């Protein structure tokens, strides 16, 4: 297990706007070890999605160094697959075809078609959607769409899995169900995962570490919390766990005492 698998050093991000420069992120330093699950949490507008976009390579940092698995991050690539908030499945393709597009891109150079198809089916089976392979995205529920998105991301066997508020658009019950699902998948694959969220319970339940962001502009990492809860974690037995509740209140304190909501600060 590599200790410095994902490495961010003095990362800055400045947007050029019509009203001049907008500093979104400054001095972000973070090291993530291989197989770790890290959540990034903060109020909306604190630049947590911006940070994830920098790691995915969808946008470029203005300053600083970003390294993933010993290589500097320059542009997006299938080694850092992303699960987008709004699933981003292509509506003209079935669930299987959506996953297959990713599998084909990554493995078609070395593997035969039958193997590629098996990979796509396995990825869908991993998220419990083997039966919906031939359905189109508009025929399945929001939670299922998001699971297909996760299947697509995992099918590429990424070095790092990036989750951009993957459950933000779902109702509470579906969300809880999918959190359990992610716990199970991460345990199975051991994939290094970085997740952006604004849900405290979600962050504590899933993460090894929680990165708490200060409010923007010029947001940076305010505090990092180690979640020392043994795995496998079970939602129901955790609700009365003192360690769980300590972590939870720690994050809540950071968000609501040290970092007020941005709206309140403006008002």
């Amino acid at each position, binding site marked *: 297990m590599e200790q410095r698998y994902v490495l961010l050093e003095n990362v800055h991000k400045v947007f050029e706007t019509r009203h001049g420069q907008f500093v979104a992120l400054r001095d972000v330093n973070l090291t993530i070890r291989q197989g770790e699950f890290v959540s990034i949490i903060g109020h909306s507008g604190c630049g947590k999605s911006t940070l994830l976009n920098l790691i995915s390579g969808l946008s470029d940092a203005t300053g600083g160094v970003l390294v993933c698995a010993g290589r500097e991050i320059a542009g*997006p690539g*299938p080694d850092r697959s992303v699960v987008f908030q709004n699933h981003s499945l*292509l*509506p003209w393709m079935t669930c299987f075809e959506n996953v297959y597009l990713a599998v084909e891109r990554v493995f078609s150079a070395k593997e035969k078609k039958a193997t590629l198809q098996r990979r796509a089916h396995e990825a869908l089976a991993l998220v419990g959607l083997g039966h919906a392979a031939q359905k189109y995205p508009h025929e399945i529920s929001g939670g299922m769409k998001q699971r297909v998105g996760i299947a697509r991301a995992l099918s590429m066997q990424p070095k790092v899995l990036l989750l951009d508020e993957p459950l933000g658009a779902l109702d509470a019950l579906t969300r809880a169900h999918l959190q359990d699902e992610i716990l199970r998948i991460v345990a199975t694959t051991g994939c290094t995962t970085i997740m952006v969220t604004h849900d405290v319970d979600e962050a504590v339940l899933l993460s090894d570490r929680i990165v708490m962001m200060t409010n923007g502009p010029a947001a940076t990492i305010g505090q990092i919390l180690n979640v020392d809860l043994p795995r496998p974690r079970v939602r129901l037995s955790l609700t009365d766990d003192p360690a769980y509740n300590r972590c939870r209140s720690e994050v809540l304190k950071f968000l609501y005492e040290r970092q007020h909501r941005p709206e309140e600060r403006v008002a």
Partner: protein
Amino acid sequence: MPVVKIKLTPTPVVDTEIPPAANDSRVKAAPTLLSAPSTPVSRVIRSGLTWVVPPALGLLVFVLLWAQISVVSGLPGPIKTWASATELFAHPFYIKGPNDQGIGWNVLRSLARVGTGFGLAALIGIPLGFLIGRFTFISRMSAPIISLLRPVSPLAWLPIGLFVFKEAQPAAIWVIFISSIWPMIINTAVGVTRVPQDYLNVARVLRLSEWKVFTKILFPAVLPYMLTGVRLSIGVAWLVIVAAEMLTGGVGLGFWVWDEWNNLNVEHIIIAIFVVGIVGLLLEQMLVLFAKRFEYQG
């Protein structure tokens, strides 16, 4: 206490959700006319009331107005025109020399011209639209030309065509081409710029080749926009063909209208107007049906 118990039992919830059939706008339009439970027979009557009666009534009013106007102005009335039409459509494909051919030939020749001009326009306009939509530089380059040439009346292009091609036939096709190309260019280009960024982000994360991006993402996403452009274009082409043929001659609906004007056969002119309208309607409906096959739900 049994009474309290009964009160506490929740009353069975009546399914208040509107069944899908009642959700239909057709039914909403005439809710009071038939409140009886929906049987197949009553449904047929309902859809008849909402879909057949109003258009039929509209056509009836139109024919009556036409009859009235014909009395005042001396135009041929509906009955006289109908008689003339039955005679005309009895032999649609006769040929008596180059200037006297059946209505069927006239329609087919006009359609062939429209097809050629429109086909060429699609062949050039759609790829051009993709380029303009995908590359900002090309978009900025072409913007002044498009906004300059698009509002020009189609017939203003005819002399240019006649001068360049020295012949009537290609000049007419040229007019169709130049007037029907704009909706396809513009709609395709707009479609490309409206492709959701999320889809393109997927392409970037997967690092798809430009060809894959085109076939798997760009083309399917743009297709509905493109087909709207095609539909508008074919409408314009059919609109322009009559005028172009009036000026260029040969066999075709436009020429036929002008010829019958010279013969003072006004019934035939009215018939021609109906034929142009009906063929245009059919073209439009065909493309609407075609476009429906490519609709997708986001």
